[in-house]
C-alpha cells in the first residue's frame, strides 16, 4: 500500500511559517520602546565625546539608559532621512543644519520644535545672536548646535618656517596673496611643500572661500548672501557681483601661484594631513579641532596658526566660525520629553565642559563658560578664541546656506576652476542659478 506524505509535509510547512511569524512578532515586541531609554545619534568619529555626554546624563538621571547610534557624514545627509521619518526614529537625531535634509525635514513636519529646550537651557541668553539665527527656521527653533568650531585656519610648521627663513606674522594674519606666495616659494626652496589642502575632500576648497568672502563683501552683503536663498528674505546681492567673484578670483590666484602641494586636486584631507604631520608640507588648512589631533599624532611638531590673506587689503581676515546646528528631535521620537532634557543637558555647563570641552576639545556653543574651564584646550586654540573676542568671528558662508547652494554645489566648481574648466565669473553664475532655482521652488 502506497502512503503519501504530502499531508504531513504540508503540515510541517505551515508549522514552520507559523513559528517564523511568531518569532517576528516577538522581535517586534522586544523592540518596543522603554520610556527610560533614549536613542541618540552622533556623527561617526566622535564616539568618545558623545559617550561622555551620554554617561554624564545617565549619572544625572538614574534609571535612564542612553543608547548611541553612529551615523556617517554621508548618510547624515541622505539615508538617515528615512530613519528619522520612520517608526524606528531615534529620540535625538543628527540633522546637519546646512543640509537639504534639514530643510526637507522641517518643511515636512519631520522635526518637532525645540522651544522647551530653549527655555530649559536659557538659550535666548546663552546662545550668541549668530548661533541663534542659525538655529531658526521660519521663526522657530528645530535644532541645536552643541559646539562652536573655527575652520579654514592655516597651521604652519615652525621648524619649517625657521629653515626657510620665514618670520610668521605676530597678529596671525598673512598680509596679502603675494605674501602667501612668497611664503610658499621660500618653503619650496627649503624642501617643503606649500599649503596642504585636500582638493578632493569635498569641503576644504570651499572652506577657503568662507574665509575670504567676508573680506571681500560688506557686512550687509554677507547677510544677504547668507539668507537670500530663502524666498521669505529679500535678495539684495547677486553671486555675480564683485564681492563674490573677487573672493573666488583670489582662490584662483592661489592655485595659479602654486601655493598648494603637488597633486592637491587628487588628495584627500587625510593625505594632506599626513603630509603636514610628517613635516613634508610647511602649512595645512584645518580647523580648531586639529590642534588636539596634532598634539596627539605629532607631539614633536611645533606649530603655529595663521589666517588667509584678505581680498580687500583694507579689510582684516577674522577667524571663521561655525556653530552649525545638528541635533534635533524627530516628530516620531518615542521619548520626546526625555530627548528635550538630553539636549538641554548637552548645552548645560556640565555637559559643555565635562564632555565637549574635556573629552573632545570642542569649543562651547554657549557664551557663559568661564575662561578657567578653557585651560584644557591647546594654546593655539586659546589664542584663536582670544583673537575671535578681539577681532570678531566671521560666519562661514557654506556653514550657513544649504549645501545644495553652498558646499556640495561650489566645491566641484572650484575644483573645475583649478583644473581650468571654470572661471570665477562662471562659478558666480552657477551659484546664482542654483539660488534662483531654490527661491522658485
Amino acid at each position, binding site marked *: 500500500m502506497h502512503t503519501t506524505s504530502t499531508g504531513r*509535509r*504540508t503540515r510541517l510547512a505551515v508549522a514552520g511559517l507559523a513559528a517564523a511569524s511568531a518569532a517576528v512578532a516577538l522581535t517586534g515586541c522586544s523592540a518596543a520602546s522603554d520610556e527610560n531609554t533614549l536613542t541618540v545619534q552622533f556623527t561617526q568619529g566622535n564616539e568618545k565625546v558623545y559617550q561622555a555626554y551620554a554617561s554624564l546624563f545617565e549619572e544625572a538621571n538614574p534609571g535612564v539608559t542612553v543608547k548611541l547610534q553612529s551615523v556617517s557624514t554621508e548618510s547624515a545627509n541622505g539615508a538617515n532621512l528615512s530613519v528619522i521619518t520612520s517608526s524606528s526614529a531615534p529620540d535625538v537625531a543628527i540633522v546637519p543644519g546646512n543640509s537639504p535634509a534639514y530643510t*526637507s525635514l522641517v518643511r515636512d513636519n*519631520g522635526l518637532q520644535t525645540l522651544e522647551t529646550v530653549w527655555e530649559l537651557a536659557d538659550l535666548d541668553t546663552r546662545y550668541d545672536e549668530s548661533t541663534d539665527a542659525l538655529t531658526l527656521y521660519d521663526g522657530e527653533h528645530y535644532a541645536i548646535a552643541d559646539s562652536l568650531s573655527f575652520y579654514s585656519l592655516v597651521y604652519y610648521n615652525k621648524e619649517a618656517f625657521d629653515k626657510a627663513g620665514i618670520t610668521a606674522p605676530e597678529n596671525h594674519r598673512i598680509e596679502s596673496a603675494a605674501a602667501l606666495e612668497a611664503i610658499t616659494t621660500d618653503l619650496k626652496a627649503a624642501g617643503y611643500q606649500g599649503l596642504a589642502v585636500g582638493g578632493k575632500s569635498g569641503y576644504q576648497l570651499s572652506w577657503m572661500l568662507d574665509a575670504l568672502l567676508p573680506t571681500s563683501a560688506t557686512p550687509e552683503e554677507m547677510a544677504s548672501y547668507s539668507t537670500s536663498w530663502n524666498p521669505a528674505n529679500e535678495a539684495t546681492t547677486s553671486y555675480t557681483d564683485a564681492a563674490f567673484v573677487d573672493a573666488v578670483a583670489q582662490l584662483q590666484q592661489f592655485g595659479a601661484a602654486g601655493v598648494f602641494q603637488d*597633486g592637491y*586636486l*587628487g588628495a584627500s584631507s587625510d593625505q594632506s594631513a599626513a603630509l603636514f604631520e610628517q613635516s613634508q608640507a610647511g602649512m595645512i588648512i584645518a580647523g580648531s579641532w586639529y590642534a588636539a589631533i596634532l598634539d596627539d599624532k605629532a607631539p614633536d611638531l611645533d606649530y603655529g596658526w595663521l589666517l588667509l590673506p584678505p581680498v580687500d587689503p583694507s579689510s582684516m581676515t577674522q577667524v571663521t566660525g561655525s556653530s552649525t546646528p545638528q541635533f534635533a528631535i524627530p516628530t516620531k521620537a518615542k521619548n520626546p520629553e526625555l530627548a528635550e532634557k538630553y539636549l538641554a543637558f548637552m548645552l548645560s555647563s556640565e555637559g559643555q565642559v565635562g564632555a565637549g570641552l574635556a573629552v573632545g576639545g570642542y569649543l562651547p556653543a554657549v557664551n557663559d563658560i568661564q575662561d578657567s574651564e578653557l585651560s584644557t584646550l591647546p594654546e593655539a586654540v586659546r589664542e584663536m578664541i582670544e583673537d575671535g573676542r578681539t577681532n570678531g568671528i566671521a560666519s562661514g558662508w557654506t556653514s550657513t546656506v544649504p549645501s545644495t547652494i553652498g558646499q556640495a554645489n561650489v566645491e566641484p566648481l572650484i575644483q*573645475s576652476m583649478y583644473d581650468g574648466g571654470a572661471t570665477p565669473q562662471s562659478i558666480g553664475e552657477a551659484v546664482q542659478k542654483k539660488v534662483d532655482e531654490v527661491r522658485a521652488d
Partner: protein
Amino acid sequence: MTVTSTSSLPASREGGSTAPRRRRRRPPFAYVMIVPPLVVLLATFGYPIIEGVRISLSSWSGVGPLNFIGLDNYISAFQDPAVVQSVLRTLFYAVVVGLGVVTLASALAAAVSRGAKGSGFYRVIWFLPSVIPVAASGVFWSTAFQPGYGAVNKLLGFLGLGDDHAWLGSSETALFPVMAVAIWANIGFAFLLVLGAMEQVPVSTYEAASIDGAGPVRQFFSITLPLIRPILVVTIMLQMIWAANEFSLVYAMTGGGPGTSTSTLPVFIYNAAFKFTEYGVASAMAIISGVVLLIVGAIGLRLSRAKGDD
C-alpha cells in the same frame, strides 16, 4: 490471493510500450515551497524596481509624499549636458575596463593553460586582487598615485621616469589610473572563467595543429580564441556591466573629481540623491542606466548563443 496494484502507472513498460506516458502530478507541497523564494524575490527585487520607477516620475527630497511630475526628470536628464557627459564617460569606462580585463585575462590564462612553469602559483596570485575589498583598493591606490610619496610615483622615480606625476589631480588624466585599478581588481574572476574555457579545448586539436605546422601564437588565435568565443563574449559583457555599475572604486579614488571629470553614472546618481537630495532625478538616471545595461546584456547573450550554436 490476487494483489491489485493501486499504482496509476501501466503494469508493464518493457519492450517499448506504446501506451502514452501519463503526466506526473506535482504535489501541492511543491507549490507551497515556491512561495517563500517568490516573496523574497518580489520584496528584494520587484518592489524596489517599482518604487524606483515611481520615484523617477516624481519630485522628492527624501521626506514627505512623492510629487508626481511625469517624465520631467527623464527629459531634464537627457537635456542636461552634465548627464550626457556622464553617460558617455561611463560607456567609455565600461568598454575600456571590460575589454582590458578580458584581454589581459586571456593572455594570462593562455600562459597558464599551456603549462607554464609555476602555473599553480600564478592561478592564486592573479586571482588575489579580486578578493580585496574594492573600497580598500580604492583608498590604497589613491595614495599610491599621489605625487612624491605614492608607491607608483616612487617606483617611477626609481626607474628614472620622474616621481611627481599627479594623474589624479587633473581632469585629463584622472580617469586612467581608476580604469587601470579597475582592470587589476577584476582580472582574477575573468581569468578563472577564461582559463576554465581554455582547458576544455581538446589537446588533440592542438596536436593536430602542431602537426600541420601551426605555432603557439597561430594556435591561440586560430583555435583557442574561436573555440572559447562564447565564454569570451559573456565575460566581456559581464565585465562591462559591472564596470558601468562601479561606484566604490571611483568614489574612493577621486570622489568623481576633479570637478566632475570622473563622475561616472553611479557617482553622478549618488551625488544627485545624497548631496543634492534630488531623488527623482537620481532614480530617473538609475532607470535609464538599468535599461541600457539590460539591452547590453541581452545583446551579449544573443551573441554568445549565436556563436555557441555555430
